[in-house]
């Protein structure tokens, strides 16, 4: 898989052109205004980018998760807000529904999600805990007269408050297991359900053109059949969702890292200092060489994780490694690219300024770097010591 076949390459190239011609010219303004880019989302929907890993029978493109990763990389080369909107909608919104949902749930939601007409969101993190999502969970759902009654708060939920948000999959405690631990289930809460309040957008350091919200549930009632899959499987569902999501975030990170290389290569030919283009100086050349090395190795890491995932082999370790390596690469490259741009790098109007602001979250979202190391150590059998 390290050499893309014709289909993947044609898809990659199409999205590269789309990002360059449609996203790049306008995204800076959306970012500045912290505005969700509905027009771009509509066009990505028409291209089928929200339906890549979903079979054609369910309204998708009949591709696979790797195709999604390639798309995320190409989008993030230009802009991460747009990329994370697709990532969260597909990997956190549509995929859990596709994997665990009932036939009726899929029929109701999947075609619209795959077309990008509606966005799904996944509400796991709470104000009191993200890394220890299960331990920190306070949101509850109790069954009453054939309805789930949900109470609690969710923090930092992507795509939860757009005009086209269809539902949020809410992880909640639905009881106590035999071993005394909380029983966790996922319940689909359609946008606009009474008792479900979406707060105003957070003011964020980066990803400013993406939608991130705090959500509160106050005796919010949904029908019993809105349970996603099986009761008590919520924990297992989000572990699986997050393993895949890490590969996607790795791809997105590689895109940002590559964007830093692209921008720097262009700039060091144009910008002159002390009588030469700055790319003449070895100090600059080595920075870019290092950026290229990080991007390349991170790409290999996510290709490898995706290959194992698609082959149906265990890929937890590879996914964690890819996410860690790639988010580090993005962060390091953003810092160096900004340095190369000098004062202009600190200006929001340059893409590298945006890259700098967008990189940090990659070391936090869908599992912090510390959590990735915990997972890798556990995979190496160290957690039982």
């Amino acid at each position, binding site marked *: 898989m390290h050499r893309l076949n014709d289909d993947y390459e*044609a898809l990659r190239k199409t999205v590269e052109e789309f990002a360059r011609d449609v996203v790049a010219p306008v995204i800076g303004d959306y970012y500045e205004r912290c505005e969700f880019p509905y027009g771009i989302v509509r*066009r990505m929907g028409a291209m*089928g980018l929200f339906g*890549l890993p979903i079979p054609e029978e369910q309204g998708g493109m*009949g591709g696979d998760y790797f195709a999604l990763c390639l798309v995320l990389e190409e989008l993030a080369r230009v802009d991460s807000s747009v990329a994370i909107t697709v990532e969260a909608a597909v990997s956190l919104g549509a995929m859990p529904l596709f994997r665990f949902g009932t036939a009726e749930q899929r029929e109701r939601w999947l075609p619209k999600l795959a077309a990008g007409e509606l966005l799904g969101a996944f509400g796991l993190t709470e104000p009191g805990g993200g890394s220890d999502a299960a331990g920190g969970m306070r949101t509850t759902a109790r069954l009453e007269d054939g309805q789930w009654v949900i109470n609690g708060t969710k923090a930092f939920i992507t795509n939860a408050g757009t005009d086209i948000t269809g539902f949020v999959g809410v992880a909640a405690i639905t009881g106590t297991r035999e071993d005394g631990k909380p029983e966790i289930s996922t319940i689909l809460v359609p946008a606009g359900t009474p008792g479900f309040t979406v707060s105003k957008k957070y003011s964020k350091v980066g990803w400013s053109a993406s939608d991130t919200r705090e959500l509160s549930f106050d005796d919010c009632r949904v029908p019993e059949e809105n349970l996603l899959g099986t009761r008590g499987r919520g924990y297992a569902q989000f572990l699986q969702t997050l393993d895949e999501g890490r590969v996607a975030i790795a791809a997105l990170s590689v895109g940002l890292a590559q964007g830093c290389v692209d921008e720097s290569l262009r700039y060091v030919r144009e910008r002159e200092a002390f009588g030469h283009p700055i790319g003449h100086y070895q100090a600059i050349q080595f920075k870019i060489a290092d950026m290229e090395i990080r991007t390349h190795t991170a790409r290999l890491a996510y290709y490898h994780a995706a290959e194992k995932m698609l082959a149906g082999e265990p890929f937890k370790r590879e996914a964690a490694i890819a996410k860690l390596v790639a988010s580090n690469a993005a962060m390091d490259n953003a810092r160096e690219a900004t340095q190369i741009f000098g004062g202009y790098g600190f200006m929001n109007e340059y893409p590298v300024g945006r890259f700098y602001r967008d990189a940090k979250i990659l070391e936090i979202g869908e599992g912090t770097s510390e959590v990735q190391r915990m997972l890798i150590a556990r995979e190496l059998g160290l957690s039982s010591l």
Partner: protein
Amino acid sequence: MNIVVCVKQVPDTATERKLRSDDKTLDRDAADGVINELCEYAVEEALLLKEAHGGEVTVLTMGPSKATDTIRKALAMGADKAVHLVDDALHGSDALSTSYAMAQTLKTIGFDVVILGSESTDARTGLLAAMLAERLGVPQLTQANKVDIDGTAIAIQRLTDYGHDKVEASLPAVVSVVEKINEPRYPSFKGIMAAKKKPVQTLGIAEAGIDASQVGLAGAWSEVVDFAAAPPRAAGTIVTDQGDGGTGAAEFLASKKFI
């Protein structure tokens, strides 16, 4: 409805484009080939017409064998099949001989409506639609920014400096489009995968009923006699306003014979 959309591969405008020193034709190997931008609008319009009226969209491309990439792109956008006119004898054809070769091919494959971009980014003659219509003996509706078809009646709107023209005709007809007409779709992954299975028929000049003496360099009516690189841009003139800026600007324009 049998819709034929003409699609041309051109050198990427983002790369350096050159003429060959030997026969003064475009060096098609030197640059990456891409779909001519206006052809994407033509393909989109063909697909919209098919979606509204039913029928089939056939891509017609005259060009070297590497033009298959461009054909695949049009198929990935949603066209049903393609005809690729490819023959060494066509190399060096000018607008007139190209229109002859394309018209012969169109007669061979049949059509209700032929759609093409109003010009290509390489030669930029903008002549092909008119020449094709003449050779095929059908109406030409050029520079359309809107196309309506109702049964066998076709009407287009053409933006002009003073408003817009409305041109009506009956099918079969040739239509050329400008970029205001629509927003070309990007191929979906499904489209990309489906494109590989769509039929592409390759025709040589004999199969398309083309007389070899009327095409190629030998058959061309126009000839590139000589060419030279564009001179580098000279520095501009700055008129500083010290109360007489208006006069200064007017004098400059007069010296260039603009006023």
